[in-house]
C-alpha cells in the first residue's frame, strides 16, 4: 500500500476554555511506497507519536489529507475506513498496556479474528506464537505474568494476524533492554522479508534508525524534513 500525507497539521488544545493551543505538526508531507521502511526521528515530545497515530489512521488531522493508495482516508465512508484501517496497524511503546489486563494471551490473540469473520482455532494461535518464537504455554497466561519482550512479541503476532500492509512502529523497543531490543528488531526484519510489509519506525535512537531505515525523516518544531 502506498501512503501519502499531504499538508497535515495538528495541534493540541488544553486548558479550561481550550485557550492553550500547542501546534504539534505543521504542514507535514510524507510519501511512503509499498514495502519500504522509513524512519522518523526527533526529540522527545516533538510529536512523533502524534505523527504515528495519524499515519495509522487512528487520529484525524486538523487540516490536510491522508491518502491510502490514492483514497482520501478521512473523506471515505465508514466501511471503507474500516477495511483500509485494518491494513494500517500500530505497534506501541508500552507492551504491557497493549492488552486488556483481564484477558488471557490466548483471548487477546484471538480478538482480531472476530472482526474478520474467521475462527481462531488453537492450532492457528499456536502457529502465531511459534512465528514469534514463543511457546504455546504462553496462551493461558495473563499480561502481568509476561516480560516486556514477550509481550511485545505477542503484540507483533496479533498485529500480523490481520495481514497489514503498513505497520507504524512507535518506539517499539524503548522500554526494552539491549538484547531484547536486538531480538525484536531482527524478528520484525524477518517478518518484513517474508510478507513485504512496510514499516514506519519512530525512534529517538539514531543508531537504530540508521541500521534499519534506508530513508530517514527528522521531526523538529512540528516540521518534517528528510535527512537520509
Amino acid at each position, binding site marked *: 500500500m502506498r501512503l501519502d500525507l499531504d499538508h497535515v497539521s495538528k495541534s493540541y488544545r*488544553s*486548558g*479550561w*476554555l481550550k*485557550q492553550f493551543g500547542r501546534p504539534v505538526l505543521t504542514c507535514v508531507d510524507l510519501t511512503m511506497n509499498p514495502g519500504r521502511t522509513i524512519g522518523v526521528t526527533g526529540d522527545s515530545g516533538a510529536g512523533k507519536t502524534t505523527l504515528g497515530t495519524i499515519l495509522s489512521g487512528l487520529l484525524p488531522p486538523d487540516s490536510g489529507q491522508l491518502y491510502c493508495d490514492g483514497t482520501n482516508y478521512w473523506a471515505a465512508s465508514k466501511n471503507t475506513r474500516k477495511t483500509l484501517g485494518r491494513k494500517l496497524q500500530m505497534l506501541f511503546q508500552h507492551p504491557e498496556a497493549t492488552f486488556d489486563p483481564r484477558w488471557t494471551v490466548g483471548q487477546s490473540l484471538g480478538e482480531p479474528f472476530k472482526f474478520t469473520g474467521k475462527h481462531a482455532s488453537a492450532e492457528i494461535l499456536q502457529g502465531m506464537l511459534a512465528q514469534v518464537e514463543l511457546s504455546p504455554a504462553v496462551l493461558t497466561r495473563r499480561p502481568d505474568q509476561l516480560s516486556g519482550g514477550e509481550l511485545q512479541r505477542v503484540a507483533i503476532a496479533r498485529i500480523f494476524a490481520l495481514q497489514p500492509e503498513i505497520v507504524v512502529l512507535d518506539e517499539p523497543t524503548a522500554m526494552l533492554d539491549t538484547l531484547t531490543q536486538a531480538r525484536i528488531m531482527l524478528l520484525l526484519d524477518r517478518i518484513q522479508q517474508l510478507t513485504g510489509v512496510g514499516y514506519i519506525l519512530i525512534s529517538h535512537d539514531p543508531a537504530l534508525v540508521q541500521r534499519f531505515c534506508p530513508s530517514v525523516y527528522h521531526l523538529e518544531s512540528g516540521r518534517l524534513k528528510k535527512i537520509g
Partner: protein
Amino acid sequence: MTGTRVMVLFLWRKMGLYVLTLFLVCLLNFCLIHLMPGDPLVHLLGEEGYSRLDSRNSQSINALRAQLGLDRSKAEQFVNYIQKVVTGDWGWSHHYGQPVVQVIGRHLLWTLILLGPALATSILGGGWLGAWAGWRSRRMVGQWPAYVVLGLYAIPAYCMGLGVLMATSRWHWMPWAGPAGSGIGIWNHSARLALPLSVIILQGAAYKFMIMRNAVREELDAAYVLTALSKGLSDRQVLYGHILRNVLPPFIAVTALNIGFMVGGTLLVEVVFAWRGMGTLIHQAVIARDYPVLSGTLTALATSVLVANAAADVIHALLDPRVGQGVALE
C-alpha cells in the same frame, strides 16, 4: 494567559456552577409547591389556614390568590418567585406565624454554632491524626487504628448521641436535653453544646481520618518520597513538607463534598438533643406540613453548603499551583 487570570477564571467557572445549582434548587422548590397535585394555595397556607379562610367567604380566597399572583401564568409566577427569593421574601410560615426568613434565620444560627466548630475541629484533628496514621500504616502495628476508626465512622452521629443519652440518662445534674434557646449563663449553653458537638466531631473526624490516612498511604509509594528520603530528610520533614503538600488539595476537595453529608448528620443530631436548629425546624415543619418553611430550609442549607464549597475552592486553588497554570486536573 497569566497564572492569576487563569485562577480567577477557574473560580469564576466554579461560581457559575454554584449559581446554577441555586437556580435549580429554587426551580425544584417552585415545581414542588406549584406543580404538586392539589391547590398551591393549600400548600402555602396549610390545611388549617385554608379551611379557616374558606369558611369565612370565598371572596377573600380569590383576593388572596390574586395577591399571591396565583392566577398568572407559570412562567410569570416563576420569575416572580425568583425575584422574591433574591430579595429575601421567602414566604410566610403558617405554623410559626412569621416570615419564613425570620424563622430560618433563628434556627440556622444555632445550627451553625454546632456545624462551624465541628467542621473546623474534625478537619484539623481528623486530618492530622490521619496523616500520622497513614505514615505508619505500612507497618504491622499501623493497621488496627483504621478498623477502630471505621467502627466509629459506621455509627451515625445521631445514633451515637442516642446511645450516650441512654447511658447518661441517670445523671440528672447534666442539662443534656432542653431547648438551646432557653436557660441562662455560659455554663448552661456550653454544657448543652458539649454532647451534640462531640458526637458530630467524632463522626466527622473519623471520616477525615480515613480519607487522609488512605491518601497518605497511597502517596508513600511515590517517587518523590524516595527522592526526599534520599536527601536525608527526617520523617517529619518528608511527611509535612512533601506528602501533605500533595495530599491536601484532593483532601480538601473530598472534604468539601462531605460537607453536605455533615449537614445532614447535624440535622439528625439536633433532633436527638432537642437543639433548636434546622433539624428540629425541619422535623416540626414536616409534621405540620409547612411547605414554605421546608422549601426555605432547602434553599438555606444549599446556600450554606455552596458557600463552604466556594471557600474550599479558593483554598484548593491557592494550594495547587497547577490550577493557576491551566493544567487540566481531571
